[in-house]
């Protein structure tokens, strides 16, 4: 079995995210990191590989993003991926969800994976939907939010929470599965793996290398236009208590509750 894991570089959670008003796009400067939700997808791939239920020949990390996104790939490789693929092209900038999914699907087609794994959401985009778009273009079934995967011959048995409780679904491969963050506890990379990550093969592709039609990506190839950024109605900021002396904190909380006739 060959597994591709989709990974993305996102601004560090500790850094404030904002819109660049001159371009209307997300400001992606500043500290960057591997999307934390994607570490669960890599870990899921590693557990399938190490689980031994089926032989896994290769785990390949795939990303689409600017030059700096190689760092996300290095991190993915340090967490266990065998090699990585980087799709990067000016023409891709400003792609919407459907265009991004299309470009990723072209990149994945070259790899012919049996299984594509991805994270439940990107920390900056928060679309939860790339998996469904990629699956549609690849003609594969897709499930999102999966928290348990059992591998059987040519099939996966997946569990996930949907609107009416937990569903168990049997999926024939090839398939696209996005994993929920409760699926596993990602490992930490060893120092040796971090040092070795840059030596693992990395395929750098331009849009044309991947067979991506330029007219279907980027701002011009996107079917949705986003703009008119506004601030939501401001809610009166709540009162904040820094807990230093807990007895005092509790006294304040109780007074607050009493004032509102809650106790």
């Amino acid at each position, binding site marked *: 079995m060959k597994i591709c894991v989709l990974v993305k570089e996102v601004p560090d959670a500790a850094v404030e995210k*904002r*819109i660049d008003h001159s371009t209307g796009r*997300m400001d992606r400067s500043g500290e960057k990191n591997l999307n934390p939700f994607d570490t669960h997808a890599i870990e899921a791939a590693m557990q399938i590989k190490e689980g031994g239920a089926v032989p896994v020949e290769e785990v390949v990390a795939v990303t689409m993003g600017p030059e700096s996104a190689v760092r996300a790939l290095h991190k993915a490789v340090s967490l266990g991926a065998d090699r990585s693929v980087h799709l990067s092209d000016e023409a891709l900038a400003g792609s919407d*969800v*459907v265009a991004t*999914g*299309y470009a990723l699907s072209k990149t994945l087609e070259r790899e012919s994976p049996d299984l594509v794994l991805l994270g439940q959401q990107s920390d*900056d985009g*928060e*679309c*939860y*939907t790339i998996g*469904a*778009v990629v*699956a*549609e*273009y690849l*003609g*594969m*079934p897709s499930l*999102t939010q999966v*928290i348990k995967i059992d591998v059987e011959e040519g099939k996966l048995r997946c569990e996930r*929470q*949907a*609107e*009416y*409780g*937990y*569903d*168990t*679904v*049997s*999926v024939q491969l090839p*398939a696209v599965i996005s994993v929920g*963050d*409760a699926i596993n506890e990602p490992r930490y990379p060893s120092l040796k793996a971090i040092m070795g990550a840059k030596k693992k093969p990395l395929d750098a592709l331009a849009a044309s290398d991947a067979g991506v039609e330029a007219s279907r990506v980027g701002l011009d190839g996107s*079917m*949705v*236009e*986003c*703009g*008119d*950024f506004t*601030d*939501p109605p401001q809610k009166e900021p*709540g*009162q*904040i*208590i820094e*807990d230093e002396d*807990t*007895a005092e*904190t*509790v006294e304040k*909380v*109780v007074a607050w*509750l*009493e004032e509102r006739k*809650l*106790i």
Partner: protein
Amino acid sequence: MADILVYVLHYEGALNKNSLGAVSEGARLAGELGGEAHAIVVGDGDDLTEELAASLGNWGASKVFRARAPEGLAQPVIDAMAKVMQDNGHTYALFGGGLLGFEVGAGLAARLGAGVTMEVTEVDVQDGKLVAARPILQDSKISKSRYRDKGVIIGRLNAFEARESGGGPATVEDVEVELSSQATQATMVQRGEQRGEDVDIEGADFLVAGGRGLGKPEGFQMCEELANALGGAVAATRAVVDAGWYPYSTQIGQTGKTVAPKLYLAAGISGAIQHKVGMQNSENIVAINKDSNAPIFEFSDLGIVGDLNKILPKLTEAVKAKKGS
């Protein structure tokens, strides 16, 4: 012509409340666009009766397409919706909040070459087209989406209110769908399994909700003690429910329950959007979190920055003492 097709989820003979909201919203928007709002229901069980489908007329659908295909998985619904939209020339597809709507909506947009926007809180008509508002960057900004051609709009949970339109039963049209090969690759083994006991959190005036910050399943004891002292119930986030720490019936949020108690007290909860949508209408929101940057403080009335292990037990004692006096 700018007609809207609304996906309506149903389960065990009942229509999904968020889907009904989407039908009402679709009817309002179609009225402004000078088109019609149609609904589509998909299922292969006996519970998907003609009456159930026709009842969507009460919420504003003038016509309901009924596709006989498996429901609960995205691909068969994508096949059905793509066919109905192509055969009938709908410009927009609309979904209420939920999980399946994300999967179906995104796949459908790819199939149709449409634009898609998720987590939409408001839709307007401008120049004869739909414009969807979506909060981004953890709700710190609102962005407007416009569509070059076809558009798929996926609502945020509870964004659209279900309103009875007074319309009679809708016409029901059965449609034959040929399933794509990927739609036959996935099969439901078990649907709607309830994990853990059935707890009523929707009736409680006081809710103490616990998240991953409790550290371990046993951490919920602290929440239970405080809830007992207040005379309320205990709720949870998906993160801890998925981890098996607490029953599914206590989960608040996008794929859980929507609550609006007099007091909602969060312990060790970050305040992710998918949790917030299920509790933001609570009368009083109190949060305990050790991270002063936690998003939950953005929408709390009282925020306590500190360690819940220290605060919860003392708070329970103090509430008991007050109530006893």
